[in-house]
């Protein structure tokens, strides 16, 4: 079992803002919640994001591409990681869309984002 303390702290910070936003219904609290959520999702994605076949550009020299493919094929993906990354990516997009529209998230959206943070902050099983 693996647990990343730094990601855990970011998740806790985001949830703290979620709790304050739902309790006070204040605009700046919602903005803080979205900001913290975005930070958390980005941190998860960059921590777990691994190179994939698709990341190997066509213009790299063939021996480099071969080497990169070898790296991709040897990486071990913990069970549930793909689902975690999918959830993070889709909710990161949702947060970004709300921020781009410069609006306050609905209660449902807040709950959905908070649940995704909680779910994706679980430890990785070996």
């Amino acid at each position: 079992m693996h647990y990343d303390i730094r990601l855990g702290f970011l998740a806790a910070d985001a949830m703290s803002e979620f709790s304050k936003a739902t309790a006070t219904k204040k605009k700046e609290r919602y903005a803080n919640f979205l900001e913290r959520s975005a930070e958390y999702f980005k941190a998860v994605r960059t921590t777990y994001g691994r190179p994939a076949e698709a990341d190997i550009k066509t213009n790299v020299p063939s021996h480099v591409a071969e080497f990169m493919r070898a790296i991709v094929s040897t990486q071990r993906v913990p069970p549930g990681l793909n689902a975690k990354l999918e959830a993070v990516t889709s909710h990161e997009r949702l947060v970004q869309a709300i921020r781009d529209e410069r609006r306050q998230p609905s209660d449902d959206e807040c709950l959905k984002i908070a649940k995704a943070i909680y779910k994706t902050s679980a430890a990785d099983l070996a």
Partner: protein
Amino acid sequence: MPETISNHARLGAVSIEYLVRLKYVVGQSTTWSRGTEYQAIRGKILDVCQECWSKLFNEAALFRRIYQGKTLSEADILHLRTLLRTTSGTFIALHELLLFLPRESIRRELRDYCECLFRPEFKTTKISLMLTSLFAAFEYSLDEVMRFLEADVFKSKVPKRQVLPFGNVLELAIVDRSNPLAWAVLAHEFGHYLDHTSDITKRAVDQFVKKRLRGKVPESFITAWKRLCSEIVADLTGYYLLGPCSILPLVNMSLLVGCLRDLPIEYDREHGAPTTRVLMIRKLCEHDGIDAGRINPLLDTLIEEETRKAGELPQKEQQNRTTIEDFLTDFFDAVRPGILRELKARKFRQFTARDYKNAESLAQNLANGLPVGSCRSHSDDEVREKLLTPRGDDWTWARKEYHLLTEHAVGVGEVISAGWIDRIDLTADLFLRAFSEPDQEKAFSYIAKRLEEHDDLILKSIDMIPILEAQNAP
């Protein structure tokens, strides 16, 4: 103060207690790890603990509501669960760093505890007591640790106990050095030692295969049942010596690890799921007439947490869990009488319903700040009646009645049970007061101090037992 507190409150208490203990233990270690390389590790552990504690204390209002028994919203619950996940994860990850620091040896009281509880079969020359990693702490012999770590040398060659007679260890997590309630886990590990040295499992499984299955079973299944049965022997030994509180360190650890996962803890091909093991302990209590109501809040928290998670599994997986639990309990019922017969034949002091009742009374003494390692043979009323009955003006007769005040040693199982009962009772008060402190330093010190005082009372109680036993020996 609410009479009962919620599962969330219990869950919070477990995670927060571990974090506070860790920070406290590391903070205390300055005297024996002065080197700069150690200071760097210690400093890092303390910084991270502090950051985690700050995050918890920032939500003091939420915790006050929890320990006041107020209803939580869905948002509160998600917030709380994330905080506890962070706390448990921080504790578990940091605890393993303690392995890089010099550590103290075990406490003298731990040896007294083992000698009192496991006699006549505890020999310090044959079993080592060690402080170690959180996960290795749940192993019982060096070869089991190696197997757990998948060390290559043991993959192909498992040492025979005749060749490696020094392999028996009883391991305790470093953080639990001065936490005697956590020592209850050693009764389970001692059960493994007994089994390892006298083949209780082998006889129980042979009997099971012969009687129930008439011998027609592939060897691979027998091996699997032996692993499972070995855990049942260990659980039964724990229960036989310590009563139902023997399961509580496992319950606490399962709650702690459970905070980190959304899936329930499963049967791992050796240990039954924690919920199954609690079920087995409850069966034993029912059979022996032990009403373990005072420790039920903790057991119920684990059952409810795991049941909630299991309920979210696909139907097929839920069915598998039920099938496995049914088989395990059936297997447990089949092998239990033979194993208990073997334990009874060994002259251990068996923990009884009377001991549990006594532990409930002793818990009240602990709550009043008194150690509980000894008690008088005669009740206060009895002594008062004899001493206050007029017998003329010559009071020299009173000297003859001094023996009424003689104290005898309490069983170590009763002390540990009393400690658990009192600890469970004081949870709401401890955390409500802590989270009502004006700042995070005071709140931390409050919890650390009360835990230390509680530990000290139980350590003092254990300390008294061998002294009184020696004094009253024929």
